[in-house]
């Protein structure tokens, strides 16, 4: 019985949140890794791209809520997603056309593109703050829980409740669907294969008649989808604040690098590695240990390894370790 309680607490505060967070990071890392693999540069503007996409979702959601549209128990934001993706895609394609294409044609060094992406990051960031402000925005509605702690306790008669938030459920389902579609696209369609070919060997791809501008277009479209969805899922689950999305850059890049930059499968694995590490290291294990251990070994303190504020230190530490021992990542990524 005690072990069961321990497991429930563990699931509630560690496993389920980590799975949700890991899915969000995975989607974010996928965007970063695709741009790295195909366009061959590290896109520091990705966090703020997510913020932009989420901002559009929020504005549309508020408008929809204002005119009384709802799809309860699901959050209204889901309806807004396709339109927001469309707007984000336009932003990304515009940025590519007016900013990045110049450097691509010049075959600039990846470092230059990184600095340019810093500039883009600040424009996006300024834009988001300008339109929606710097404060916290909550926009989730619909049912809060798929199953609440109270209901769980009632059903099972246990003294610990297991809660699954709607947003967590949506996150996992959406992530699985999107990843499945993406992998189908990359592995089974002609266009997807041409993108992989382009990432593998650009000269040979050009020789085979693959149109580079088309590949770039599709890449940004996919990034728009991934970034907007990742940002929205994160915003629904936690809340929207522009600065947080900038901070997410570190775990997202850590996830992509840990998995192997340029490798989509790696990005997903990396996302979960980082998420689980962050959650487990900053969680107060007291309750779980109280259930799991015999009485005389029970801890008196919170048994929290690191304070929650040090979350990002965990991503960074993992990143450092991977860089030191296996710089190409868990799954072999690209060498630039």
């Amino acid at each position, binding site marked *: 019985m005690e072990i069961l309680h321990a497991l429930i607490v563990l699931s509630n505060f560690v496993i389920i949140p980590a799975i949700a967070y890991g899915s969000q990071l995975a989607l974010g890392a996928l965007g970063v890794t695709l741009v790295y693999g195909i366009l061959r540069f590290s896109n520091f503007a990705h966090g703020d791209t997510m913020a932009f996409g989420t901002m559009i979702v929020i504005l549309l959601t508020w408008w929809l809520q204002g005119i009384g549209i709802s799809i309860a128990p699901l959050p209204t934001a889901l309806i807004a997603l396709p339109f927001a993706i469309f707007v984000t895609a336009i932003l990304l394609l515009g940025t590519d056309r007016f900013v990045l294409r110049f450097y691509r044609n010049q075959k600039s060094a990846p470092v230059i593109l990184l600095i340019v992406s810093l500039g883009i990051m600040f424009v996006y960031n300024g834009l988001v703050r300008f339109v929606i402000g710097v404060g916290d925005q909550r926009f989730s509605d619909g049912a809060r829980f798929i199953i609440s702690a109270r209901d769980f306790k009632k059903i099972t008669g246990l003294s610990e409740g297991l809660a699954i938030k709607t947003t967590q459920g949506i996150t996992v389902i959406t992530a699985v669907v999107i990843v499945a579609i993406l992998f189908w696209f990359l592995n089974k369609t002609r266009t997807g294969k041409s993108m992989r070919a382009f990432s593998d060997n650009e000269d040979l791809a050009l*020789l085979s008649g*693959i149109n580079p501008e088309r590949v770039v277009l599709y890449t940004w479209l996919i990034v728009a989808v991934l970034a907007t969805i990742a940002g929205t899922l994160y915003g629904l689950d936690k809340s929207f604040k522009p600065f947080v999305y900038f901070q997410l850059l570190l775990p997202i890049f850590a996830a992509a690098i840990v998995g192997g930059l340029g490798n989509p499968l790696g990005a997903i694995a990396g996302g979960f590695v980082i998420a689980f590490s962050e959650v487990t290291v900053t969680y107060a294990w007291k309750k779980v240990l109280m259930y799991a251990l015999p009485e005389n070994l029970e801890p008196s303190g919170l048994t929290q390894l690191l304070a929650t504020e040090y979350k990002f230190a965990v991503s960074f530490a993992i990143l450092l370790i991977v860089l030191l021992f296996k710089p190409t990542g868990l799954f072999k990524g690209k060498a630039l």
Partner: protein
Amino acid sequence: MSEPFLVGEAMTGGYGNGPDILHDCTVAVEPGEIAVIVGPNGAGKSTAMKAIFGMLNLGSGNVKLNGEDISALTPQDRVLKGMGFVPQNQNIFTSMTVQENLEMGAFIRTDDFSGTMEQVFDLFPILLEKRNQSAGELSGGQRQQVAVGRALMTKPSVLMLDEPTAGVSPIVMDELFDRIIEVAKSGISILMVEQNARQALEIAHKGFVLVQGRNAYTGTGKDLLADKEVRKSFLGG
């Protein structure tokens, strides 16, 4: 003598704005024949082929395919006209399967290319066996087969190979040359740059010996092999 199927005539030029590497160089391929370009290191062999493919600037001279002047076309456009090119290095997609490599080879085709793929598998049976294996895992000789197979997927009228036997063992080289002869028999003209001059000339209908970007000796493969001068300078006596 009929008009050669592919001819790069009196080509002079170099890379970008650099100095000329080719000086008044002419290379021609008859339909269904194998033409080989040989010569010492730095003679401009690969450069001549790249010039025919449109990868460098020709100061003077032209390139004609089947009577049509294609000097102004980009390499991609020349592929559309029926030229196939197998680079010396990095000529396959290492992260993709053998089958996917062939599919990418046929990228510009809008019709059903399964027939062509079958022909390629007939020509290179080992590729059929390993069709779902990642191309990067194959041996050197097998990778070259993938590279040639990829180029064949567009059903080119002329296939150009840049040092196809570089870095492979003699047995594999023989096998590759056998395959190349098969390809030629099916009606595709072959233009090949080779370091292994002797073996290449043995299978060649026509040979072009280049020295410092100029034509030094031209003739049939047999004639060049028999020529005392050629043997002394390039074939080790």
